């Protein structure tokens, strides 16, 4: 059963998003550990996986926190990626979903979603089929989630490349 996502008003999590070439990975450093801890709550975190790219989620609130994890650049395509709209908000898993601390849920196997990088705009787009998003929500700094038909349609990232 596909995971359902819903968006609501709220503030994006502040911080810095990196892509570390040496680790082939994204990393998110929260600007305020206290803010992050408050968002996580007492139930801990788990992640939704697109390949090995991790969408970190609060178990208590089911709110998406940030993106991190292994996502080798060698498999990215290059092409134009225009900046998404950046309406700040909170995206949560909705519907009948049960999360357990540290037990990830798989959205897609490795290679199923395609990644496009635009070195001019700096944006990275990760999506399964390039369909347009109905809503684009800035959930964390330089991190936008595209929602379509209550599903996660696109991940937009603008990392600092280091």
């Amino acid at each position, binding site marked *: 059963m596909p995971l359902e996502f819903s968006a609501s008003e709220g503030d994006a999590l502040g911080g810095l998003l990196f892509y*570390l070439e040496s680790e082939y990975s994204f990393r998110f450093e929260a600007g305020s550990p206290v803010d992050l*801890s408050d968002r996580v709550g007492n139930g*801990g975190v788990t992640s939704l*996986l697109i390949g090995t790219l991790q969408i970190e989620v609060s178990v208590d609130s089911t709110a998406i926190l940030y993106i991190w994890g*292994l*996502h*080798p650049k060698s498999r990215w395509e290059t092409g134009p990626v225009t900046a998404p709209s950046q309406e700040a908000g909170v995206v949560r898993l909705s519907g009948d979903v049960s999360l357990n601390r540290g037990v*990830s849920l798989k959205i897609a196997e490795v290679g199923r979603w395609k990644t496009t990088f635009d070195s001019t705009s700096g944006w990275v787009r990760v999506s399964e089929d390039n369909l347009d998003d109905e809503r684009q929500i800035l959930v964390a700094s330089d991190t936008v989630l595209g929602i379509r038909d209550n599903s996660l349609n696109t991940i937009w990232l603008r990392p600092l490349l280091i």
Partner: protein
Amino acid sequence: MFTNDDPLNEEDPLGLTPEADGEMFNELEAPDPDGWAGETEPEEGNSGGNVGSKENNNDTKIKATELKVTDTIQQEMEKYVKDGARIDRPYQRSVLTIQNIIDSGDPVADPGGAPDSVRWDVRGYNESDNEGTYELVVNLKTMTILHFGFVGK
């Protein structure tokens, strides 16, 4: 705890003895004939690292104690820990769990395209008795864990 500067060469960070850890993770399954660990074919054109055959794998067996983790994984392991009471992915701190995964069978070249890297997918149970699959990606050149997750069934 293990860091880039402190390889996994000391006691299990969870304080588990090999015997106790063995009990904790004794349900980590060895590969079966229907295929789990090491049986996923790498994608066409994969330029990942060499994967030893079963014959030479014994000679080049990876020791979990010689592995380090990326700074990114290390950061995630430490991000929410308060007074040691809050660990979301405790399996990541178990050297013996990592060794069990490695020993379960031959890995495949990382299908995600990480250079010089191999991947294991191994069925098992976590410390809370959730059933799932351990995913482990290791760069053989740097002996670094690039990805280590547990995916629920």
